[in-house]
């Protein structure tokens, strides 16, 4: 069986400008920041980013890498409004497909199930329909006759996610309370790159943890990157909480100044 371990740089070298890229985690929680940092060091740009947005979106927006964003929100949680995302939106920097959280989830489910869409009871009556004129509705063929949004599949060229543990084959384990949509991102993508706090032997994954912590299966994973502290400054429960001081610094420092230190090669991947 194939060993899929690689470095963050090797993972990013497989991405191309213009791709549709899904990023796991949620807000400022378990974001694959080591992979995002490697992406920021690369020249990859013109991306369609699909994310329950946090600093991943803020940084890629500040760096001008986003052509289009698909998201229900962008937030740093403890700092409700993401400053770089705000600045980008207020200057009209990129196209936005703003959808509801449930629409977002069912869009990933549709892609994972190779369906063109899934019906969702969300969006109708709201301005999500006005700002996304491409959205279509579908009416139940059964007696109820209710009309739903036909949420299109959110197919991804690539996905980036960060979990607590993985083996070298790509079996990924979360040890925190919430899987977020990370497994769906991997299933919806042509290629998924999974970073983790620690790579362990397969047998060790379930030595002390229940099998249902094995969130991501290896057939959905292309590359495994060991990145200790790889979600920093976002949280990665139970390994560590959010580094609020580091997040505050990010949120209050002009991007160019922050990026100088943050993207310097001396800062090892995941540090």
């Amino acid at each position, binding site marked *: 069986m194939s060993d899929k371990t690689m470095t963050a740089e090797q993972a990013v070298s497989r991405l191309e400008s213009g791709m549709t890229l899904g990023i796991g985690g*949620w807000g400022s929680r378990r974001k694959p920041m080591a992979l995002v940092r490697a992406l920021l060091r690369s020249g990859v740009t013109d991306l369609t980013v699909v994310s329950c*947005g946090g600093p991943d979106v803020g940084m890629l927006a500040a760096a001008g890498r986003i052509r289009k964003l698909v*998201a*229900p*929100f*962008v*937030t740093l949680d403890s700092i*409700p*409004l993401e400053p770089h*995302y*705000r600045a980008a*939106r*207020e*200057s*009209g920097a990129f196209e936005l497909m*703003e*959808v*509801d*959280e*449930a*629409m977002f*989830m069912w869009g990933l489910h549709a892609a994972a199930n190779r369906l063109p869409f899934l019906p*969702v*009871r*969300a*969006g*109708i*009556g*709201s*301005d*999500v329909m*006005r*700002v996304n004129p491409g959205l279509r509705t579908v009416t139940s063929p059964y007696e109820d006759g*209710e*009309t739903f949004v036909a949420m299109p599949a959110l197919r991804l060229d690539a996905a980036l996610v960060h979990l607590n543990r993985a083996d070298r084959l790509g079996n990924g384990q979360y040890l*925190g*309370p*919430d*899987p*977020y*949509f990370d497994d769906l991102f991997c299933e919806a993508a042509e290629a998924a790159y999974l970073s983790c706090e620690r790579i362990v032997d397969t047998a060790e994954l379930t030595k002390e943890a229940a099998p249902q912590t094995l969130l991501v299966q290896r057939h959905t994973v292309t590359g495994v990157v060991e990145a200790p502290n790889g979600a920093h400054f976002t949280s990665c429960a139970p390994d560590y909480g959010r580094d609020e001081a580091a997040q505050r610094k990010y949120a209050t420092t002009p991007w160019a100044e922050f990026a100088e230190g943050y993207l310097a090669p001396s800062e090892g991947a995941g540090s």
Partner: protein
Amino acid sequence: MTATRALLLPPTRAEYCVIACAEAWRGDGEVLASPMGLIAAVGARLARLTFAPDLLLTDGEALLVRPDGTTEGWLPYRRHLTLVTGGRRHVMMGASQIDRFGNQNISCIGDWERPKRQLLGVRGAPVNTLNNPTSYWIPKHSRRVFVERVDMICGVGYDHAAGARHHRIPRVVSDLGVFDFATPDHSMRLASLHPGVTLEQVREATSFDLTIPDEIPPTREPTPDELRLIREVLDPDNTRTREVGS
């Protein structure tokens, strides 16, 4: 000051707000109470500890917890969304803007294409309003929040809810009073004034015409036991005054 003396002080505005929020969940049964904002959260826990003992509460992350913090269930985001569409939830959201039919905005101020001020995004407001009862908690009642028309409809109001069989906005609570939509055209009505607030104050802080009943009831008084729970158990550090001053 001793605890006993503290309990003799009359209810503050913030405490009337807690009561008004708590009342939103009265009679809801075994559903998830999802409060957003500090006072709404104290209200939900107060309801759970008193007149709505079957309510479910979360820790704000992925766990269902009892008021003492004991874990009783697992509710990650994806299951939370299923609970929403299953209807077994009553959420109390915030609103950057709300209009007279209860349309709510948390996405952006100004033109969506290039907003004057980007806010959070629609989040789950569209799915919430079409699937489970959605109330609102607004700590600072002003013309900037209570607007004639919202800039981006996130939460769906009554004038956009035709055919939405599970749509319901039980109440809007602000620091001035309680509002509902019990009018023939489902436009907003003043349901009660918090003690100490005048009708004129509400009118001045609202950009649209409210329906005003002939007799305006006051928001009900907290019971001595409720005051004790708020002051000594649920919010002993008095963080509620940070959201609503006296």
